[in-house]
């Protein structure tokens, strides 16, 4: 265990930024992760509006370029990066995307962006927003370093070899201590809101239909979700020379009707209620069947960013109460 004095935070970040690209939450139009050189711009008051998945799995990416029949692959090169101030939900979300994209056959673009990355996590002593339900999602440790705030310092835990190495590199600011973390340093009070993650029996429940009647199919839920990984692939060509172009991978959303369209305009999940139910089942049941954990990490962004505030946690809780 280590101690990082709050008074040393700026020097800590400056020193870190001398060796790595440091990305931390900064308030611009909203709180979002961006590169910092000092602690001045860092805003730890709330969770980032946009999750960090875009750094490993950008919204749009070129899979390859072509000119005639010649193909070239622009695999991304990433220099060592440290993400500072990542909440427990978002750390778990990265781990869940790793399960998808680093299993064989690996996504080489994701793997290239993901390597050389360290995470300094930050404990949420208070719920980050009124919709967070991370306490119900059995989150695990996925940090390299973990910061838990005390009065005038942070108690710092190393959670990996990379974290220990980082602590050594920054030993000028991270001082060993006998003080230990307690269970409370990994839990956020008031966030155990989802009454069950076993929703298999609710498949035919009419609440899926009544609960989603205000859905606008805008896909804000999946766009701001830290774990959603659905995508589509299409080609574009240069308008001046149509033999040149690229194949693009782009985020898509199971909340859009076109998501399940096949030939002859046949839709396998046409009604909004079926699309809504699919999203929740994929987040909770389907992913767990394959990977052993729920995909959802309980950050609550899908609810707080929904323009009509469709709160699926309350909807599932109503089913439990029936």
């Amino acid at each position: 265990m280590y101690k990082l004095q709050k008074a040393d935070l700026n020097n800590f970040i400056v020193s870190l930024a001398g060796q790595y690209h440091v990305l931390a939450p900064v308030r611009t139009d909203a709180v979002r992760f961006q590169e910092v050189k000092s602690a001045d711009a860092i805003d730890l008051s709330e969770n980032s509006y946009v999750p960090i998945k875009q750094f490993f799995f950008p919204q749009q990416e070129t899979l390859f370029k072509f000119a005639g029949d010649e193909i070239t692959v622009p695999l991304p090169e990433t220099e060592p990066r440290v993400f500072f101030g990542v909440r427990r939900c978002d750390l778990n979300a990265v781990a869940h995307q790793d399960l998808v994209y680093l299993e064989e056959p690996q996504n080489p673009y994701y793997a290239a962006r993901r390597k050389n990355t360290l995470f300094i996590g930050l404990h949420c002593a208070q719920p980050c927003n009124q919709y967070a339900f991370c306490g119900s999602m059995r989150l695990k440790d996925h940090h390299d370093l973990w910061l838990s705030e005390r009065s005038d310092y942070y108690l710092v835990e190393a959670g990996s070899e990379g974290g220990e190495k980082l602590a050594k590199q920054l030993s000028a600011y991270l001082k060993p201590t006998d003080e230990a973390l307690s269970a409370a340093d990994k839990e956020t009070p008031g966030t155990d809101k989802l009454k069950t993650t076993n929703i298999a029996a609710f498949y035919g429940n009419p609440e899926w239909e009544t609960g989603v009647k205000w859905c606008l199919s805008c896909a804000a839920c999946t766009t701001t979700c830290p774990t959603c990984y659905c995508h589509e692939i299409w080609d574009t060509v240069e308008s001046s020379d149509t033999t040149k172009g690229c194949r693009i991978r782009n985020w898509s959303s199971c909340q859009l009707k076109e998501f399940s369209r096949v030939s002859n305009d046949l839709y396998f999940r046409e009604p909004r209620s079926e699309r809504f139910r699919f999203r929740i089942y994929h987040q909770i049941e389907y992913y767990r069947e394959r990977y052993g954990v729920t995909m959802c990490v309980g950050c609550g962004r899908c609810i707080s960013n929904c323009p009509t505030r469709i709160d699926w946690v309350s909807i599932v809780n109503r089913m439990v109460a029936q």
Partner: protein
Amino acid sequence: MTNTNVYLPEPVKVLENLRETTDNFRLVLDIPFKNEPGQFVQISLLGIGEAPISIASWDRDYLMLHIREVGTVTRALGRCKPGDTVFIRGPYGKGYPMKEAEGGNMVIIAGGCGVASVKGVFDYVGKNRDKYNEIYAFVGYRNSKEVIFEDFVDEWKESMSLFVSLDTLKEGTCYDATEGFVTDLVKITELPKGDTVAMLCGPPIMMKLSGRALIEKGMPEDKVYVSEERLMYCATGTCCHCMIGSTFTCKDGPVFRWDELKEHTP
């Protein structure tokens, strides 16, 4: 094909583009191909896009695809000429249970374009006929103009009992076929006795009705296999478009056991 980047296709030359019906064509590609019957490839034209297509051949020194023109990619592929380059990645997915069916009978039911998916099975049994007892193949088309793989019919008849149905059979045609839906033909035919594995591919309603017909005739649900179609992009179980419940059509399918699909949950 071995390629560390799963998204990268390989260039392949077109040997033949044979128009089979007004909107169906057959592409023969210059590449010896190893695949299981029932698997699929991703075929693309650079600048147009990619589409998943069933492999209509097995253990040949070429790759045969049967394609129906329904969208941008398939229409553009329909215009390909011999010598043109197309791009291929795959094969992907789980094919038909050829091993499991060994020593017993096989009932194959296919409708329209779905015949392309079981064509690999036909190729396979042509070369492995001694491994199976009775083989009944039911193929259905809308009418005589929609019949595909007509040039293979003699070859198929050598290795199996072939039943052909046409939804509408015009008077005066001397077609050796029954008028009506293939499902009805299955219902009125006495199926082979003993251990039997069924393999189905066709429009969703056809598979649903023929699967039910087989089960009503006493076939166990875990002996009926269906080949599903869904929108897909990655073909490796990550883009999620092809999910049926928790299963991925591209990876866990496209051939599924009837009871695995859990009432075909959307």
